[in-house]
């Protein structure tokens, strides 16, 4: 009897061990791809493809809305506990703070296996001191979306190419009772999508980078000219007068519904615009050059930004790294095809994309310089101060000179 009991106990133990060995590895993935996000379905598909290719590995996808996500990931990184295995992040300043705190896994030893498909120049915004800490999957740029039907109604068959022509076009639109530009004044980053292109087209790529790095004073005529041009758009009533109460989603919906002639925002909006009833009436272009001595039309705001990173504390390093790279590759391709974003990974040469995405890709291909979005380039504290100043400039609470001086004083203590 004793032997029987002993045998049974041993069998139970073995069964327990066997089931433990066969237990799935579960990887936690945090992203901003909530259901309303244009990348939501792509993430679902990418995860399904990854799970199919890696039997025994399950991915627990936890999406959180953009602004709340920033708080959530920072709080988790701060606590250092309950961190996901893989997480979505923006490059440069945002990821940089986590890297500096040793919360992110260095991917240098894994990168060579993917280098052929993910060119080195695409990894710059996820690299710190020459070391790679993230897998960029899509890049984006600020473009000027235009409703060509509305423009045609006031006699324009193209997006204005000079500041003077743009002003004339906007005046004609106003006279016809149409609001030229849609912008969310409630979400300050949307205002920066208007100011930054003006800035780069006034000071040029290299100097804008120097400004963000604090290597050049903001208090110079070219910065002031850019802020003046920005405030002119407000003062001439080119923006929706209700902008201050509108969120970006509402503004985008209004633009697609034909309320505005132009909507300047990230290229990630292509997917939503393409889903409209008549996407053929929309075109992507660029805001005209402000100072031709310093900048050209194809100096752009944007770059590789959407990134997946692996936490340094993950218990399943190999699987998590595979998830980051393979999801990145899948997302790059799928987001490109769906119009959600431009690819960081070498795209499928036979990919069928919409006209709008082709136009955006064409703009990127002609790029003569690119600077990442200011609020991603700068550290969190600097970025929010910078956005505050943009909000104040938009509201007319400060002059262009005060904006420039404030940036110098507050950000760089000059």
């Amino acid at each position, binding site marked *: 009897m004793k032997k029987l009991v002993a045998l049974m106990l041993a069998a139970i133990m073995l069964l327990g061990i066997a089931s433990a060995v066969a237990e799935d590895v579960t990887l936690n993935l945090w992203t901003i791809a909530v259901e309303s996000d244009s990348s939501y379905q792509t993430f679902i598909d990418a995860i399904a493809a990854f799970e199919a290719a890696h039997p025994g590995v399950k991915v627990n996808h936890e999406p959180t809305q953009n602004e709340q996500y920033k*708080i959530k990931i*920072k*709080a988790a*990184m701060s606590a250092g506990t309950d961190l996901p295995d893989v997480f979505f992040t923006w490059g440069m300043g945002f990821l940089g703070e986590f890297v500096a*705190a040793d919360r992110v896994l260095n991917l240098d030893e894994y990168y060579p296996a993917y280098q052929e498909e993910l060119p080195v120049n695409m990894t710059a915004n996820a690299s710190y001191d020459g070391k790679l800490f993230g897998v960029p999957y899509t890049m984006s740029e600020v473009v000027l979306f235009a409703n060509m039907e509305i423009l045609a109604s006031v006699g324009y068959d193209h997006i204005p190419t000079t500041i003077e022509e743009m002003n004339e076009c906007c005046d004609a639109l106003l006279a016809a009772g149409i609001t030229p530009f849609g912008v969310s004044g*409630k979400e300050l980053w949307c205002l920066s999508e208007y100011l930054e292109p003006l800035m780069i087209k006034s000071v040029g790529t290299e100097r804008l980078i120097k400004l963000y790095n604090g290597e050049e004073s903001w208090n110079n005529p070219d910065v002031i000219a850019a802020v003046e041009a920005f405030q002119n758009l407000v003062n001439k009533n080119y923006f929706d007068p*209700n902008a201050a109460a509108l969120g970006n989603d509402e503004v985008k919906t209004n633009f697609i519904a034909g309320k505005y002639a132009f909507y300047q925002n990230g290229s990630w909006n292509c997917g939503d615009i393409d889903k409209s009833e008549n996407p053929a009436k929309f075109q992507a272009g660029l805001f005209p050059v402000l100072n031709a001595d310093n900048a050209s039309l194809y100096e752009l705001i944007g770059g590789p930004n959407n990134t997946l990173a692996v936490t340094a504390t993950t218990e399943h390093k190999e699987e998590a790294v595979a998830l980051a790279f393979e999801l990145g590759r899948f997302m790059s391709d799928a987001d490109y095809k769906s119009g959600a974003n431009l690819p960081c990974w070498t795209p499928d040469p036979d990919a069928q994309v919409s006209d709008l995405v082709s136009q955006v890709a064409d703009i990127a291909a002609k790029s003569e310089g690119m600077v990442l979005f200011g609020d991603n380039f700068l550290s969190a504290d600097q970025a*929010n*101060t910078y956005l505050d100043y943009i*909000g104040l400039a938009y509201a007319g609470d400060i002059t262009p000179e005060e904006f420039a001086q404030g940036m110098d004083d507050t950000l760089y203590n000059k």
Partner: protein
Amino acid sequence: MHRPFSYKLNIFLFLLPALILFVGILIAPIAMSAYYSLTEWNGLGIPKFIGLQNYVELFTSKSINIMRALKNAMLLAVLSVCIQLPFALLLALKLSRHVKGERWYLAIYFMPVLISSVVIGQLWIKIYNPEYGALNMFLRSVGLDSWTRIWLGDKNVAFGACLVPILWQYVGYHMLLMYAGIKGMPADLNEAAMLDGCTPAQVSWYITIPYIRPILRVSVIFAVTGSLKSFDMIYVLTNGGPNHATELPSTLMINLLFLRNRYGMGSTIAVMLIVLCFVFAMLINLAFKEEK
């Protein structure tokens, strides 16, 4: 046989779990916040001790502008005491007089307290929408077009617009507190006053209100400290905007903590809020004591 040591040990053992919870949940976080308020810390690295620099910066920095947030919080506190509480008291007095459908009215007035602030916030965002919002539509329909505003986007009116739902939401809460106090009054007090020829208004003024003074004190404390700590409704309605016009200390704290990664400065605001709430609670207690 009575054994003092064993008796004290029992008391200690029975109180220990509550003590651990109290220290762990309340005292320790306050102590930690007080420590972090003396440091420069981005939430990730090692905190750097900087003494009282955060406190100096908090009250001198134009970028943070704590005085604007405090001014808003104080305005909210004053209006809570001067508008919300009298209104709640009137409702409680009225409903406690056996009004027909008393229970229904109680439930209706208390309903906003039960509904999530996020839901109420979204509801008021729709009401305030400059294009299709009920408020502007009403004003246009009665020929008051010039009164229409971008209620949550105009820095001159945004905070006022936020105050309405904040004050409205908690009227029912204070009403219920006062109603419970009034219902707890011995019936013979009112009856005696009525027999002596008092009108209902005189009974309320001379008998009921003095009787529920302890409840009123609690309501005032809750209204004032609640105003200082107020966060959720503003966060949903404006998130402190436009251009920080509706900022409260708590929204500013969240901004500094989680958007700017300034955990030291965020903790400084947390400590300031704790001190303010404590001081105001003491002052209110003192005021009620003196009246007594």
